[in-house]
Structures are given as C-alpha cells and as structure tokens.
C-alpha cells in the first residue's frame, strides 16, 4: 500500500499509543475547519433561501434586462383608437391601485401576500379604447423574446394589473423593473416582466411558453 506522506505521519503518531483508539479520527484543526466549513455552507444556504423570500427567478433572457428609466417608454398600440407612448413618470401618474395577492408559479412554488402597486389593466383598456375587432392583448418584454397574452375579458378582471412596485419598492431588475403584468388567478408565466409594449389584437398571440407546450389559459386549480 502506498500511503501519502500525511497519512504515514498520522499513522506514526498513532503507533505511539498503546491502543489505537486513544487518538481522535480527526486532528483538531481539521475538525474545526470541517465544523466551520459546514456552518458556512449551511449559513450560505439559508441566506440564499431567505434572500429569495420564497421567489425563484425565472427569465429566458440573460443577462437580466436593464433599463435607463429616463429613456424607458411603454408603447400601447394595435387595434386601439388612442395609441400612446408613456414615460416611466407618466406611467406613475396614471390612476394607481394597490393590491395584495398571492403569486403562484407553475413550477410548484408560490409567494403569499405580495403587495403590488400599479395600474389596473381595465384602466389601460379604458384609456386606449380598443376597436370592435380587438379581443386580446399581447404583453411584450424587452427584446421581444418573451411575450404572453390575455383576452380582454381576462384583462378586465378586478385583480389584473400592471405593476411598477412590489412590496412597497420599485421592482428589482430580477422581478421585472420597470413594469410587469400581474395576473394572480393564473400561473406566473402569464405575467411578462420588463414590459415595453401592450398590443391589442384580434386573435390571441401564442406566447413564449405556449409555443413550448404550456397552456394558454393558465388558471390555477386551487
């Protein structure tokens, strides 16, 4: 058997005892290092969990889209009588609502009692005045990689909104700064983040995940 040098040393020390069990299996330094390492890993793990606050970040775009809020514009267009472009400040001047609702992800996790500040989608509908052909709304994320859609009836539900604040502060980049769709009665993939365009259409758009086999109407079964 070829032993590594430190093992030979360990065994040499061992052989001085009358009984093999007189010596600990681990040197004190190794034990303390192991204990410290284990505690650090456990601490890091719980930090990661609590920092996330129950959220898991999902995106299909890396790196996370970043906006200069000065240059940000929300475009509302398509089959509407009054297309418009809003700056971030103008967006925050629209009639605002605050709601507390639960968030459910299709992956099986959820976050209860999220406080959202923003604008009812019904308010946007009333402002833009969709034409009679319009039946659906497509929400476009920055770069137009991610999109999802709702019918006008779904968007008119009393808890459907676009939100710029979460839990009392502006959205973080991971959560969709500056603006995201909030649709509490459906799974979270319906809530496009980094919202740049709200487009009224006559037919329902097939969203990013629906192209990959997910349901268009993502009602939560609980």
């Amino acid at each position, binding site marked *: 058997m070829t032993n590594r040098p430190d093992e030979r040393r360990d065994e040499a020390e061992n052989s001085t005892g009358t009984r093999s069990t*007189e010596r600990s299996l681990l040197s004190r330094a190794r034990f303390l290092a192991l204990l410290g390492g284990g505690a650090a890993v456990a601490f890091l793990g719980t930090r990661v969990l609590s920092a996330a606050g129950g959220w898991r970040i999902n995106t299909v775009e890396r790196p996370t889209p970043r906006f200069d809020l000065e240059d940000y514009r929300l475009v509302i267009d398509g089959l509407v009588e009054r297309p418009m472009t809003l700056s971030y400040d103008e967006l925050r001047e629209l009639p605002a609502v605050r709601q507390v609702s639960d968030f459910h992800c299709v992956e099986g996790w959820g976050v209860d009692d999220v406080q959202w500040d923003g604008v009812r989608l019904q308010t946007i509908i009333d402002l833009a005045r969709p034409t009679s052909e319009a039946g659906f709304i497509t929400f476009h994320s920055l770069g137009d990689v991610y999109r999802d859609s709702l019918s006008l009836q779904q968007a008119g539900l009393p808890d459907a909104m676009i939100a710029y604040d979460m839990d009392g502060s502006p959205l973080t980049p991971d959560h969709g700064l500056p603006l995201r769709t909030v649709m509490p009665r459906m799974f979270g993939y319906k809530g496009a983040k980094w919202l740049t365009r709200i487009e009224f259409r006559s037919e329902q758009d097939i969203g990013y995940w629906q192209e990959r086999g997910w349901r268009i109407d993502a009602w939560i079964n609980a």
Partner: protein
Amino acid sequence: MTRLPDTTAESDAMVRRFEVPTRLVHWLLAAPFVLLLLTGLTNFEPGLKATQVGGVRVFAWLHVVIGFAALGGAVLALLQLSRRSARTDLEALADVSLDDYLWFQHEAITLAGGRSIGPRVGKFNAGQKVNAVVSAGATVALLGTGIVLGINYVSKSVFDASFVESVFPWHTTIALLFIPVLLGHLYLAVLNPSTRESLQGITRGIVRRDWARRHHPAWLDDLEG
C-alpha cells in the same frame, strides 16, 4: 529463526468490508443523489435554470427524470435487503449501545486536547451510524416530497396548487441543509488521512487489515474469530 516467505501477504493485508449488495445500496442511492443535488442547485442561478434544449428547460427536466430513476434505485436498494450480507450491515448500523455514546465522548475529549481511551469500535462507529440515519432520513424526505413535485411537473391537475406549494419549501430546505452533511461525508471518505481508507470499502469492498484493526477492532475480532 528463519522466516518463511509470506506468500499470503496480499490477501492478508486486506480484509473484506462490504459485499456487493451493501455497496449497491450505497451507490444506487448516492449516484442519483449527487446528480439531483447538482441539477437542483441550478434553480438558484437564473441563467443556468433558463438553459433550454428543444424548448425544454434541460436542468428541470433532468432533475425530474433522474428523480424518478432515483425512486427506482431506492426500490432496488431495498431489494438488496433480501441478501444476508446487507441485512447484517443494516443490523450493525442499528446496533446502538452505550459504546456509541462513549465514542462521541472520546472524540470530544481528544479533540479538546484531553486523553481518553475510547470504546472498541465494531463495524461502524457512532458517527457513521448518525450519518446513515441522517442520510436515510433525508433520502426518504426528499423522495417523498419529490414525488409530489415530480408528478406536478408532469401534470398540474393531480394536486392542488396550494398543496404543492406547501411541499416545495420542505424539499428545498432539506436538500440545502443536507449539503454540509454530504460535504463532511465526502471529506472524511476522500481527503481526511486517517479515515479515507474507508473509501476502498465502499468501492472495492476491501480495506487494509491494519486500518481495520485501528478503526474497527471489535469488528475485526468477530471476523477473525
């Protein structure tokens, strides 16, 4: 006195520690566990998590597929208990006595720089027994919660979303808390000089006789009659 050439040196130097069934149990559980831990951890890096192959997020998919395979592995592991050698090892793990308390006491005293004579350790020391119980508990808990999450991955209409959401944090928390235990286990088995000989036992099934005499003297006594 003339010494005869020792023709049995090779076999005398080594002693059989684990038969095939016990080693199978270990690796049937350990191999998927490590893969599941790695694929599961991608949840905390959005870029990795977003990696897709053919419109499917590949790490989530792998996690579920390996998870169901691990379930099959666990069933195969349980079937190994029909073998006497595996049952004997399980009984040795479950054989808890005052000596196990004394073993921890001895380790604590010597680590603190004191002198102590510990108990004569059998096939498993008390630390190994605790590791086995904790690992088995974590495995059962992760497989149990994982079944719910895996089925929910396939179909959202089996369980209520609220039930799935109550299971999800347990799965994550148990997995994260087990990481230090696993790292400690790996350290002792692979790196720590005085204990790493044990790795041979779970891979090749044999360990050095002199190592066994130092670390598991009561077991070796039984073996040698």
